[in-house]
C-alpha cells in the first residue's frame, strides 16, 4: 500500500479503553482517515493524517484500546507487534501518544510503564482533566512530567482543549525517549538482559519484548514462539531460575510496574475534598441502574426504547425508500417497452438495490443508539446485568445487545458483534443472530396466521406470533450452547469487565462512526447483493417458456428457479408443501418478504401484498391433485416454523461473509439453519398429523 506523500513522522495513539482516544484521533485527523487491515487478524487498521505545527505531514495510527501490551490472543498481538515494529507493512512508530484518564492514573499509568520500556518517545495526553478537577484531584503536572520523563499535555478532548499543545509537542524537531522506568528486582533484570540478547528485534525494544515473553503464560507461549524450540527452552530455563529466587515470573513485572505507578501517583496526585470512600456521581447512578429491581426496569426500558426506535422510527424512512423504489420502477416501466432488460432493471436491479438501501435507516439508528450506550458507559452495565444468562451458554454478556438488535434486523445486529473481543464468541453470536425473528419475517407470519386462523381474534393471532418469536429465541440459545461445545469450542471467556464512570457521550464522534459503518455496508454488501439479486432474477426468469405472452406464473414455473421448486418438492412434501410453495421458498432467498409477492406471481395476482384479500382467497382455495387443500392450518404452521429458523436473506449472507472474512461461515450458516428449519417443520407437520390435526 503506497503512501501518497512522504510522511515526516509516524505516530501511534494508544491507551486504555474509555479514555477518549478516538475523540483525539478524530480531532487530529478529521476526515483524512483510512481503514485497512492487518494481515491475518480481524483487527482494523485505522490510520489518519494531520499536519504538525509547521505544516509537516504526520501519520497517526489508532491502536486498539487495551489494558496492557501483554498478548494472549492473535488479535491482541497487534498493538504489541506494531510497537515492536514486527508487523509487515506497518513501520515502527516514531512516537506514541499515551492517552490517560486523569481521574484514573492509579491504573492507566500501568500501560505507560510498558510504553516506557519500549524505548520509543512517549507523549502523555492527560485527558478528562475537567472531570478530575471536579472530583477534587489536583495533579502536579510538573512532578508528573519529571517522574515520567516525557511531556504531559493536559486535555479535555471532547471540548477540543489541549489539541494545539499536543500538536506542538508532536512537532518538535527531536523527540526524546525517557530514561524513567519501573525498577525490576535484580534477578529479573538480569534474566531480561540475558534474554534480550537472544532476541532478534529492534535494538530499542528487545528489552520490552523479553519482559513480555518472560511473563507470558505457558498456554500462550508456545503459540507465540511458533516452534522456536531453542528460544522456548531458554525462556523456560529463565523462568525456573526466577522461581528458585522466589519470584513469580508472571507476577514480578506486574508488581514492579504497579509499584512504580504507586510511587509516581504519590508524588503527583493530591486529593482534596473527596476521600477514597466518597461516592462519585457514577456510583450514585449505578446504585439505581444496577439495582436488583430498578436496574432491571431501567434495563428493560432502555432495551425497549432501542427496539421501538429501530422498529417504529425506522419505519418512516423505510416507507420513503419503498415509495422511492416504486416510483423509480414505475418510471422505468413507463419509458421502456416490455422486455427482459426492463424486467431485469425493475425486478432485479431496482428490487435488489432497494433491498440493500432499505436496511440503511435501521443500521443508522441502531449504530447511533449503540454509540450512545457505549460512550456513556451504559453498555458495560448491560453486559454486567445479562452476563449470567449469556455465560450459561458459554457466551459473554456483550453478546446480548447484538442478539437483541437482531430482532429488528440481523444485519446491524451482526455488525454490532464487533464489540465482542473473543473470536469464537463473536462467530457464535453471528451464527445464531438470524434465529432471532427479524422484521422481514413479519409479513410471512401475517399471511400464514391469516390463513391459519382466519376467524380468531387479535389476541390469539398475537399469541401465535409470540410463539414464533419464542421458538427463535430458544433455538438461538440452544444452538449457541451447542456451537460453543463443539465446533467453536473455547472456554467461556473471562468476564473481566471494566465498568467505566458514566460520562456524556460525544455525539460528533458517534455520528462519524455511524456514518462510517453505513458507508462500508453500502459499498461492500451493496455490490455483492446487487450481483446476487441479478443472478437470482435470472434464475427466476430463464429459460423462457415458448408460448407467446406468457403469464408471470408460466414464466416462473418454466425458469430454473421454478424447476428447482419442482425438484425440491419431494424434499418438502413431508413438510406439507407443494412445488408452488417451493418456488416461494427459493425466491424468498432474496428477501423474506418476497415470499408474499412470489405467491402473488404464482397465483397470477398483480402486485400482491399481505393484506390482499384475493391472494388469501386464492391460497385458501388452492387444491392438490387429490382434492385436499394445500394451505391447511398445519401446513401454514409448518411454513411459519420453517421461516422462523431458515436462513433466507441474501443481505445477511453478504454481511456474514464480510464479518467473518470467508465464505465458509455463511455457507455453514445456510446449511445448519436450513437443516434446522426442515427438521422443525417436519416435526410440526408430521407430528401434527400423528396427533390428528390437519
Amino acid at each position, binding site marked *: 500500500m503506497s503512501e501518497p506523500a512522504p510522511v515526516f513522522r509516524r505516530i501511534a495513539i494508544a491507551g486504555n479503553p474509555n479514555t477518549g482516544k478516538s475523540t483525539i484521533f478524530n480531532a487530529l485527523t478529521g476526515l483524512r482517515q483510512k481503514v485497512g487491515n492487518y494481515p491475518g487478524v480481524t483487527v482494523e487498521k485505522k490510520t489518519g493524517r494531520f499536519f504538525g505545527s509547521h505544516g509537516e505531514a504526520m501519520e497517526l495510527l489508532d491502536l486498539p484500546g487495551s489494558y496492557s501490551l501483554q498478548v494472549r490472543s492473535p488479535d491482541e498481538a497487534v498493538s504489541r507487534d506494531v510497537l515492536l515494529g514486527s508487523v509487515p507493512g506497518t513501520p515502527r512508530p516514531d512516537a506514541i501518544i499515551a492517552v490517560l484518564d486523569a481521574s484514573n492514573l492509579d*491504573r492507566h499509568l500501568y500501560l505507560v510503564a510498558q510504553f516506557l520500556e519500549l524505548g520509543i518517545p512517549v507523549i502523555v495526553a492527560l485527558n478528562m482533566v475537567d472531570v478530575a478537577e471536579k472530583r477534587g484531584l489536583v495533579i502536579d503536572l510538573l512532578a508528573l512530567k519529571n517522574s515520567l520523563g516525557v511531556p504531559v499535555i493536559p486535555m479535555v478532548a471532547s471540548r477540543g482543549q489541549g489539541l494545539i499543545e499536543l500538536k506542538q509537542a508532536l512537532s518538535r524537531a527531536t523527540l526524546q525517549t525517557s530514561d524513567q522506568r519501573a525498577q525490576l528486582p535484580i534477578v529479573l533484570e538480569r534474566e531480561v538482559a540475558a534474554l534480550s540478547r537472544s532476541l532478534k528485534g529492534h535494538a530499542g525494544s528487545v528489552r520490552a519484548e523479553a519482559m513480555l515473553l518472560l511473563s*507470558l503464560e505457558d498456554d500462550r507461549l508456545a503459540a507465540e514462539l511458533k516452534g522456536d524450540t531453542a528460544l522456548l527452552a531458554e525462556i523456560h530455563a529463565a523462568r525456573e531460575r526466577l522461581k528458585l529466587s522466589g519470584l513469580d515470573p*508472571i507476577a514480578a513485572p506486574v*508488581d514492579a510496574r504497579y509499584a512504580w505507578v504507586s510511587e509516581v501517583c504519590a508524588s503527583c496526585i493530591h486529593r482534596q475534598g473527596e476521600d477514597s470512600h466518597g461516592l462519585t456521581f457514577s456510583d450514585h447512578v*449505578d446504585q439505581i441502574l444496577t439495582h436488583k429491581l430498578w436496574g432491571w426496569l431501567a434495563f428493560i426500558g432502555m432495551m425497549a426504547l432501542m427496539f421501538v426506535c429501530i422498529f417504529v422510527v425506522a419505519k418512516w424512512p423505510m416507507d420513503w425508500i419503498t415509495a422511492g423504489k416504486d416510483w423509480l420502477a414505475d418510471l422505468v416501466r413507463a419509458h421502456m417497452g416490455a422486455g427482459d432488460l426492463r424486467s431485469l432493471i425493475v425486478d432485479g436491479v431496482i428490487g435488489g438495490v432497494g433491498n440493500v438501501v432499505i436496511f440503511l435507516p435501521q443500521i443508522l439508528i441502531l449504530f447511533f443508539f449503540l454509540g450512545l450506550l457505549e460512550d456513556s458507559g451504559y453498555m458495560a452495565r448491560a453486559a*454486567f*446485568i445479562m452476563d449470567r444468562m449469556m455465560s450459561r451458554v458459554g457466551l459473554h454478556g456483550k453478546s446480548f445487545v447484538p442478539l437483541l438488535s437482531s430482532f429488528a434486523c440481523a444485519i446491524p445486529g451482526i455488525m454490532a458483534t464487533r464489540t465482542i473481543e473473543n473470536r469464537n464468541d463473536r462467530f457464535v453470536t453471528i451464527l445464531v443472530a438470524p434465529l432471532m425473528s427479524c422484521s422481514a419475517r413479519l409479513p410471512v407470519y401475517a399471511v400464514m396466521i391469516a390463513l391459519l386462523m382466519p376467524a380468531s381474534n387479535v389476541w390469539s393471532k398475537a399469541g401465535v406470533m409470540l410463539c414464533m418469536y419464542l421458538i427463535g429465541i430458544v433455538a438461538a440459545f440452544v444452538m449457541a450452547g451447542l456451537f460453543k461445545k463443539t465446533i467453536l469450542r473455547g472456554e467461556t471467556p473471562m468476564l473481566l469487565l471494566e465498568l467505566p464512570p458514566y460520562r456524556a457521550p460525544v455525539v460528533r464522534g458517534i455520528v462519524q462512526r455511524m456514518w462510517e459503518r453505513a458507508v462500508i455496508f453500502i459499498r461492500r454488501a451493496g455490490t455483492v447483493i446487487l450481483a446476487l439479486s441479478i443472478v437470482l432474477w435470472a434464475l427466476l426468469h430463464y429459460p423462457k417458456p415458448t408460448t407467446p405472452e406468457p403469464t408471470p406464473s408460466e414464466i416462473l414455473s418454466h425458469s430454473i428457479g421454478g424447476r428447482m421448486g419442482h425438484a425440491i418438492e419431494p424434499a418438502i412434501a413431508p413438510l406439507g408443501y407443494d412445488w408452488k410453495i417451493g418456488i416461494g421458498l427459493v425466491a424468498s432467498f432474496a428477501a423474506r418478504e418476497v415470499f408474499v409477492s412470489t405467491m402473488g406471481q404464482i397465483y397470477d395476482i398483480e402486485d400482491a401484498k399481505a393484506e390482499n384479500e384475493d391472494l388469501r382467497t386464492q391460497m385458501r382455495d388452492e387444491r392438490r391433485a387429490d382434492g385436499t387443500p394445500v394451505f391447511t392450518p398445519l401446513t401454514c404452521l409448518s411454513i411459519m416454523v420453517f421461516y422462523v429458523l431458515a436462513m433466507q436473506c441474501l443481505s445477511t449472507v453478504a454481511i456474514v461473509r464480510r464479518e467473518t472474512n470467508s465464505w465458509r461461515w455463511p455457507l455453514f450458516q445456510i446449511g445448519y439453519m436450513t437443516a434446522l428449519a426442515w427438521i422443525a417443520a417436519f416435526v410440526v407437520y408430521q407430528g401434527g398429523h400423528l396427533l390428528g390435526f390437519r
Partner: protein
Amino acid sequence: MGDDAPNAVPQNEPEPLSGLQPGQRGKVTAIDVPGSMRGRVMEMGFTIGTMIEVVRFAPMGDPMEFKVRGAHISLRKTEAAGIRVQRI
C-alpha cells in the same frame, strides 16, 4: 512485608474473594486463577497486597463488581473464587 495499621483486626484466614459481601474489603494474599486468566487479572490491578472492595452483585446474582485501585471491575464468582483475600 508485615502488618501495617496498628488497628488491623487480628489475622483472618485468607478466603476466596467470591465469598465476600457488598461493602466488605480484603487484601489480596494469593491469585490461584488458571491459565492466562492469572496474568490478566493481575494486570487489571488484582495484585498481591492490593485492597479490594466488594461493591455489589449483579441483579441476577452473578457477576460481582469490585473496586480496585480506583476502578470498578466486574468478575464472575468462579473467577473471583481463585483470588484469596484477607478480610479487613
